[in-house]
């Protein structure tokens, strides 16, 4: 069982390292123009020797685009998830640790936000702030926050009832320090697992937002934008969706496998 997990974790780490490598080395090796250079003789060319992953509707090489888009996509997804954690963590932590009235007020707020279609939230944010990458990150980050807050609250609630928290309190530790020293480390694994799952959703969320004009602006490349652009040509040029889709899938797969292992790494019990 353990060996199985280790192999799975190794595959995950290798996948993520490869993706990171692509994100870092890609832009060094490939000229930045490669993602936007058009070849009008080869529009929607299927994968071939000249264009290994095929081309899109403007004859742009999908291999270059998917490689150069890696960094953008990961930047957006990671920043958005980090933002939702930064916002959701204090919310959930305070709500779950103190409980009672504070919890009631905060969770009503979270419930209210949860009931709204994310699209509307995103649209509003885009309308107010304007379309660019930073605001895309904000839109996704804000939309994810209530989900994270809910999960963190549940965990904090569980941990707050553990005897070691009570022991710390009876040893005169202040609430702030208890949250920092005792509650936070113990909910971190759950946050990390949720974070890795959210990353996958964030990459796709960017695709969804780009048809509202949010997200990466063309002609720059990002996986989300590429997937969105494939929408109207899926039946005649399926590779335009499959290439970025596969990139997302591999990342998600890597993240999930890695997430399991990371949880073990963080847990001193598993050493």
């Amino acid at each position, binding site marked *: *069982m*353990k*060996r*199985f*997990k*280790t192999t799975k974790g190794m595959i995950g780490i290798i996948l993520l390292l490869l993706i990171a490598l692509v994100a870092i080395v890609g832009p060094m090796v490939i000229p930045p123009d490669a993602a936007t250079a058009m070849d009008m003789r080869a529009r929607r060319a299927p994968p071939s020797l000249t264009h290994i992953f095929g081309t899109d509707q403007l004859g742009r090489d999908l291999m270059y685009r998917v490689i150069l888009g890696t960094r953008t996509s990961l930047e957006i997804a990671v920043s958005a998830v980090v933002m939702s954690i930064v916002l959701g963590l204090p919310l959930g932590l305070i709500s779950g640790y103190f409980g009672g009235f504070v919890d009631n007020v905060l969770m009503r707020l979270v419930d209210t936000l949860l009931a709204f279609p994310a699209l509307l939230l995103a649209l509003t944010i885009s309308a107010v702030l304007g379309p660019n990458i930073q605001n895309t990150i904000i839109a996704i980050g804000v939309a994810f926050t209530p989900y994270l807050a809910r999960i963190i609250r549940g965990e904090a609630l569980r941990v707050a009832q*553990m*005897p*070691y928290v*009570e*022991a*710390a*309190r*009876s*040893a*005169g*530790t*202040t609430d702030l*320090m208890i949250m920092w*020293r*005792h509650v936070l*480390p*113990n909910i971190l694994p759950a946050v990390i697992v949720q974070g890795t799952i959210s990353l996958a959703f964030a990459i796709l969320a960017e695709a969804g937002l780009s048809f509202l004009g949010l997200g990466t602006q063309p002609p720059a490349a990002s996986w989300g934008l590429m997937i969105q652009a494939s929408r109207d040509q899926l039946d005649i040029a399926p590779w335009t969706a499959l290439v970025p889709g596969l990139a997302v899938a591999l990342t998600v797969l890597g993240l999930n496998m890695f997430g399991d292992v990371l949880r073990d790494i963080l*847990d*001193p*019990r598993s*050493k």
Partner: protein
Amino acid sequence: MKDIVSVDHLRVEFATGDGPVVGVQDVSFTIAPGETLCVVGESGSGKSVTSLSLMRLVEFGGGTITQGALTFMRADGTTLDVTAASSQVMGQVRGNEIGMIFQEPMTALNPVFTIERQLTDGLMLHKGLTQEAASARALDLLKSVRIPEPERRLRQYPHELSGGMRQRVVIAMAMACEPKLLIADEPTTALDVTIQAEILALINRLKRENGMAVLFITHDMAVVAQMADRVVVMYHGRIVETGTVEQIFENPQENYTKALLAAVPKLGEMKGKAAPERMRLIGDEAARAAQTAPKSRKPEVLLQVKNLTTRFPVKGGILRRTVAQVHAVEDVSFTLNVGETLALVGESGCGKSSCGRSILRLIEPTSGEVWIGGRDIGALNHHDLRRARADMQMVFQDPFASLNPYRRLKAQVAEPIQNFGLASGTDLEARVVQLFDRVRLPREFMTRFPHELSGGQRQRAAIARALAVNPKLIVADEAVSALDVSVQAQVLNLMMELQEDLGLSYLFISHDMAVVERIAHHVGVMYLGRIVEIGPRAAVFDNPQHPYTQSLLSAVPIADPRKRRFADDLAFKPITSPIFPLSYQPAKSTYTEIAPGHLVLNA
């Protein structure tokens, strides 16, 4: 007579990522018809693996029988090679010819099925009964395990039953097909002492009436003494010693058995002794001898609790208003002297834990006063309370949960010191080292994480943490209940040693009468939130006056096979609920002093 079960050189392995791990090896024993064989051992001894192997249930936990023979004599007289039987044949044997009872009655029943369905499905499967016939038989079974209102129980769900009743249902389920062999895996460990007595008596009666053999797995030598015909002692996956119950208890051959027996306190063995005595530990005789005769201190009051009352609201209604109250602690008063131990005993839900926590204000008491060293803890503001907590510390039951798994022990022991700014830098370091020495934990453990320690070591660390701020009072809430008996003895001895050296006072909260008898100066018996009887240890144990104290003492199993108590059915008065409507005005607790310091609650 032919043996019903014969185990020969059994070896069970578990597959893990790091290769196979041996669960048990070289285990051989037999069970004769109508005999009770007790397998006893501490955690990790392989006793449960052995019992699960008999029904080949071990394979569902990833285990494989890799060696040895397991034969079972079937009802038709044929012998079955359990290791080689098809899963279909095993399906016929399980539940039909071998019944099994597990440890946790709370989780042993499927929460979403009615009692009737869980009792009848085995009957219909194995005996081919119709639904009606099975239901009728289920009712008989419930009657035979003496469940009150059996008709109603059939239609109920497990959560509607108390723990004791659930365990009776589990037994009824195991008995449903009249098996030749009943396997009972720690069937009473999770139960209160009076319920344990009832269940043990029930098993004894059923065994007698049905002539079945019982394989009884337990860690509790007192229970072994009460139940066993023959005993198998296991340690680290191997059999240490086998013999009749008298042989084992009176003439153990192996050192391990001897040590095990020595560490077990026997109820009644302190009769006529005034002061607490340390536990017997093999190899620790020197230390015991070194125990200085108890210094007779001038009684000096440390803790005085006056009319302490703690009630929890039961919320309900649209506005979440309080509609009722749990009277967890009701008008409790006592004093605790410097350097002494007051034990609060009682069964689960009696309010002993709430009482301890209320004193530390980990939960807010409803009323009453708690005086420690001339200060009323109840009147302190948030800031002063934090300061005052340096005088009183707590040791919790579960050594796994009371230490933060993500912090090194050093940091956890140092935390209280830092909180109160008692030391820093090298002073802090030195203080932590000193504490580790004090509780006899190797210094290299300072940089370890809790999971790297055994249960006993963890509890030592928890004690070190509690000692860090030089408290005067330690509330020990079931502090040794989760430990194996030998470890429990070591920790108890440590606590007593600390008491002598540091003049600590303990409020020792426990359900274990035998342990309490050994270590306490004073004993308070709690029932439904009140102290029903309190007094010097000898007075309460030797001359119990309150009926509840009497029944409690009569239910404690004694680690002596010659003093068997549970032959016939027992029925103790069930504990009623401490929940009362808001309007309920409880009477004040008034006591009669029947001897100096020995108070009994007036009815």
